[in-house]
C-alpha cells in the first residue's frame, strides 16, 4: 500500500471511531427510555442486538410508552426500517460483497455506516469506512444500551426524571436534519396534523401509522425527480 493510501485509511478509521463513540453514547438514552416504556433489560438489549437501527428502536419503545399495542410498535419500526433498504441498494455496487460477507454486512447497514462509506470513490475505502463505522457503532451502541437499561431500572418512576419528554426530543433530533427541504417540511406538518387529529378516535399507536399515509400520498402525487437522500456524516 502506498503512503497516501495508508494515511487515507488511518483518517477513515479515526473518523469512523469518532462517529461510533458519538452514536454509542446516545445508546444510553435508548436503554433508559426502553425500560421506562416497560421493556425488560433483556428485551431492551435484544432490540439493540437484533434490530440495531436507532430510529426504529426508539419508535417501537415510543409507541409502547404511549400505550400502543406491541403490533403497532412493530409496524412503525418496520416502516422506519425501509430507509435502510434504500441505503443497501446504493451501497451494494460500491461494497461488492457476496455470500456470508454480505449476510453479515447487512446487519450494520444504518445511517452512520452509510454516511461514512457512500461518498467514497473506491471499493477499498468504502469497505474500510463501512466496516469501521458499522462495527464501532454496533459494539458501543450495545454496551451503552445495557448501561442505560440498568441505570433506567434503578431510577424508579421515569416521569420524575422527565424520561417521557426525552422520547419526543429524540425524535425531533432525528427529524431535524431532514427538514432542510421544503417538501419535507410540508409532509412533516401534514403528518403531525393527521396524527394529532386521529388521536381521539383510534387506539394509541395507530396515529403514527396513519401518518405514514401522508408519505405514501405525497410520494405518489409528487412529480419532482428526487434523488435519494443519504445521511450526512454526523458532526
Amino acid at each position, binding site marked *: 500500500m502506498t503512503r497516501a493510501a495508508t494515511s487515507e485509511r488511518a483518517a477513515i478509521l479515526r473518523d469512523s471511531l469518532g462517529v461510533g463513540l458519538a452514536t454509542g453514547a446516545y445508546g444510553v438514552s435508548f436503554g433508559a427510555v426502553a425500560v421506562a416504556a416497560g421493556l425488560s433489560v433483556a428485551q431492551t438489549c435484544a432490540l439493540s442486538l437484533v434490530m440495531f437501527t436507532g430510529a426504529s428502536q426508539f419508535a417501537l419503545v415510543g409507541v409502547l*410508552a404511549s400505550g400502543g399495542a406491541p403490533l403497532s410498535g412493530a409496524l412503525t419500526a418496520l416502516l422506519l426500517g425501509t430507509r435502510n433498504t434504500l441505503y443497501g441498494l446504493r451501497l451494494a455496487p460500491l461494497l461488492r460483497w457476496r455470500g456470508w460477507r454480505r449476510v453479515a454486512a447487512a446487519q450494520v447497514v444504518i445511517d452512520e455506516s452509510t454516511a461514512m462509506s457512500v461518498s467514497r470513490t473506491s471499493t477499498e475505502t468504502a469497505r474500510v469506512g463501512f466496516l469501521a463505522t458499522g462495527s464501532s457503532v454496533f459494539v458501543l451502541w450495545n454496551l451503552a444500551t445495557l448501561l442505560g437499561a440498568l441505570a433506567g431500572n434503578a431510577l424508579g418512576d421515569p416521569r420524575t426524571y422527565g424520561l417521557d419528554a426525552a422520547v419526543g426530543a429524540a425524535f425531533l433530533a432525528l427529524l431535524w436534519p431532514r427538514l432542510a427541504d421544503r417538501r419535507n417540511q410540508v409532509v412533516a406538518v401534514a403528518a403531525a396534523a393527521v396524527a394529532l387529529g386521529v388521536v381521539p378516535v383510534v387506539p394509541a399507536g395507530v396515529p403514527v401509522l396513519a401518518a405514514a399515509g401522508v408519505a405514501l400520498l405525497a410520494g405518489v402525487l409528487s412529480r419532482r425527480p428526487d434523488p435519494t437522500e443519504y445521511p450526512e456524516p454526523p458532526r
Partner: protein
Amino acid sequence: MSPSALWLAVLGAGAGCYLLKLAGLAVPPRVLDHPVVERVADLIPVALLAALVVVQTFAVGRHLEIDARAAGLAVAALAIALRAPFLAVVVLAAATAALIRAF
C-alpha cells in the same frame, strides 16, 4: 402487556428490520429502483418521525394535553438549533420536564 407479546414484537420487528437491510444489499436494483418507491421511502421517515414527535409530546391515551413534555420539547428544539449533540438535546428535554414537575 404480556411478556410474550413484547418478545414477539421485539424479535419479529428486529428480524424484519434485518431482512429490510439485507434486501437492499441483495435484491437486483431494478426490482426496487422506481421513482415512486424511492420518493415514498424517503418521505416515510419524515412523516413518521414528525408524527412521533407530536404524539409523544401531546397525547395522553386518547386525549391531547399540553404539559411538562411540551416545555421539554421546546428546550430540545432550541438546543438542536444551537447544534447541541444528540445526547445533550435528550438530557436537556428530560431535565426541563423533571424540573417543571418538581415545582
